[in-house]
């Protein structure tokens, strides 16, 4: 009898989901044309020879990757040394993105928890409030932040007027400013997936943990965090990956000294001074790093799914 019921269910499902496989077709087309194709073009361009006024010459070359990793002197005839400039930019980008992710997590988790534990209508209101910044363009928001935190900006003025600080704090064109920009830009991407995970969390688990002699801290560590972990990881990826490639925040808030990968790549395609193959190579290196992280995560997820 039980088997009969199950059969019924599955036949119902296939009846109503009949067109399922076709529904994804438009997405495949969009991804194919606007994602896979451009990435392949980048891959090809990264192996071509640069043309001096921007653009490429269709001739195979490893020069772009060579330039990224090795220093052969001004005229290219010295023995190769490791070129640290770009590696340091990459390293700084990873560090800035990681710190921004950590800050987002630190602020985002309690926020998400707060929203998920409100009653129905309040929940919707808070979620709505979280999305409001997205109504204003990121560029405008970043520029306004620049105005807010500059030496003679309102933040410093207020702090001075209130007597909290004796002289303006220099924030603009520092790593701190870049991190603040990244944190502010991507915080909602941390809040929303964690919110979704906490929403599904059954508070009976916390009661059971308390009943079994766990204090608040042990309950958080042993029960809550492992159960909402998928949401936390999703949030971290959604913040870390775009932070890594961001160029608005480092350009506008970081100044020339606080270059990130995104700005480096952007420079190569701007105006006549660019180097397209080099920009493409840098983008491919960034992409492979992101892919390594994502593959690692996907493998973890699959391992968990199998258990």
């Amino acid at each position, binding site marked *: 009898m039980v088997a009969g019921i199950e059969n019924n269910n599955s036949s119902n499902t296939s009846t109503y989901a009949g067109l399922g496989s076709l529904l994804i077709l438009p997405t495949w087309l969009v991804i194919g044309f606007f994602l896979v194709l451009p990435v392949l073009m980048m891959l090809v361009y990264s192996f071509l020879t640069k043309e001096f006024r921007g653009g490429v010459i269709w001739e195979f070359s490893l020069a772009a990757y060579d330039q990224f990793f090795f220093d052969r002197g001004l005229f290219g005839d010295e023995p190769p040394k490791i070129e640290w400039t770009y590696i340091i930019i990459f390293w700084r980008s990873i560090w800035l993105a990681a710190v921004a992710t950590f800050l987002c997590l630190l602020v985002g988790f309690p926020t998400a928890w707060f929203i998920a534990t409100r009653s129905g209508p309040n929940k919707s209101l808070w979620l709505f409030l979280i999305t409001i910044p997205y109504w204003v363009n990121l560029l405008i928001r970043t520029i306004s932040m620049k105005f807010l935190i500059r030496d003679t900006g309102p933040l410093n003025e207020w702090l001075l007027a209130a007597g909290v600080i004796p002289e303006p704090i220099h924030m603009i064109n520092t790593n701190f400013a870049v991190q603040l920009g990244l944190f502010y830009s991507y915080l909602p991407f941390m809040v929303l997936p964690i919110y979704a995970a906490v929403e599904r969390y059954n508070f*009976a*688990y916390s009661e059971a943990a*308390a*009943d*079994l002699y766990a204090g608040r801290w042990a309950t958080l560590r*042993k029960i809550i965090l*492992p*159960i909402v972990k998928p949401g936390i990881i999703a949030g971290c990826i959604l913040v870390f990956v775009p932070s890594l490639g961001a160029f608005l925040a480092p350009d506008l808030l970081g100044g020339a000294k606080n270059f990130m990968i995104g700005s480096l790549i952007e420079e190569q395609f701007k105006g006549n001074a660019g180097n397209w193959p080099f920009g493409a190579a840098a983008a491919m290196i960034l992409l492979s790093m992101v892919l390594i992280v994502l593959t690692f995560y996907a493998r973890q997820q699959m391992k968990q799914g199998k*258990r």
Partner: protein
Amino acid sequence: MKEVAVDIVNLTKCYGDFTALSDVSLDIRDNEFFTLLGPSGCGKTTLLRTVAGFENVTEGAILLYGEDIANLPPNKRPVNTVFQQYALFPHMDVMQNVLFGLLRLGQDAASARARVGEVLEMVQLGGFAHRLPGQLSGGQQQRVALARALAPNPKVLLLDEPLSALDLKLRQAVRLELQQLQRDTGITFIFVTHDQEEALTMSDRIAVIAEGRVQQVGTARDIYEAPINKFVADFIGETNLIMVQVLGLADGNATCLLPGGGKCTCPAAQGAIAGEGHISVRPERVGFAEPDAGVMSGQVARLVYLGTDMHVDVTLVDGETITVRTQNSTGSYIPPVGENVGLTFEQGAARLLVD
């Protein structure tokens, strides 16, 4: 008399304006299978949760073997709970779930593991230690929940409708096992249910709860045969509640004027008063007589076939309906619909209730 395990003293619990529990006092004895029985929303689960520590009390005290625990957080109370939906930790296997409480109590890993093996055997789940809760059937999950709550050897085990998620056959089997487990472990069980059959078959004593108040406490037999008020008589089993005029009360007996002018004398519940009242008579205790020969008379309105038994609904002259339960056996008299009949019952079968 045995030692008191849990002493609930004048407990009141309010949520804003709503009073969930009102002046509840109970003493639950050591090694007792004690059941809180009542309809949904009556406050029985709230009462259990105040003992577990998930709800704070508005007024009153909860003494656990003499020690007031009303203000302790749940993780400081030596009681464990079997939750209604089990609340097994989904990311931990059976072993880790059952280990959890033991490790939190600071037991060393080796002895804790030995204890887990012991309780898993006790609930017949020896081979399932490395399954995740999601890979177990409802009945198995229920056993894991039981093992997890029993492992730390709590002073009192709280069970919040643990059988309600199981299907009927399984529920009946688990009832006996639970009772046996209670006898074997000697742990005091406080069991919450809305299912009167569960309560009657398993419990040493039952507290019937309605509208946030304890209506009656007693053994299954006390509660079924000597209900104190209308609610208890009506909630436990089936009964006929007959409106009567109480003419006199003496020595615990009441003389009542029945509808239609008949009189009867029956035991009165403590606290019953003269004037208008209700008596309760179980359907199986009412018999048929010649018209006008019984204490009441009426017309057969409906027959309901129940397999072994037959329910005969008789409409009295004043419009009230009395149900008579007779066995469907050869020789028992079952009047046809429309027949005028008299109804009788023994003096002791009826009981005057507190309204």
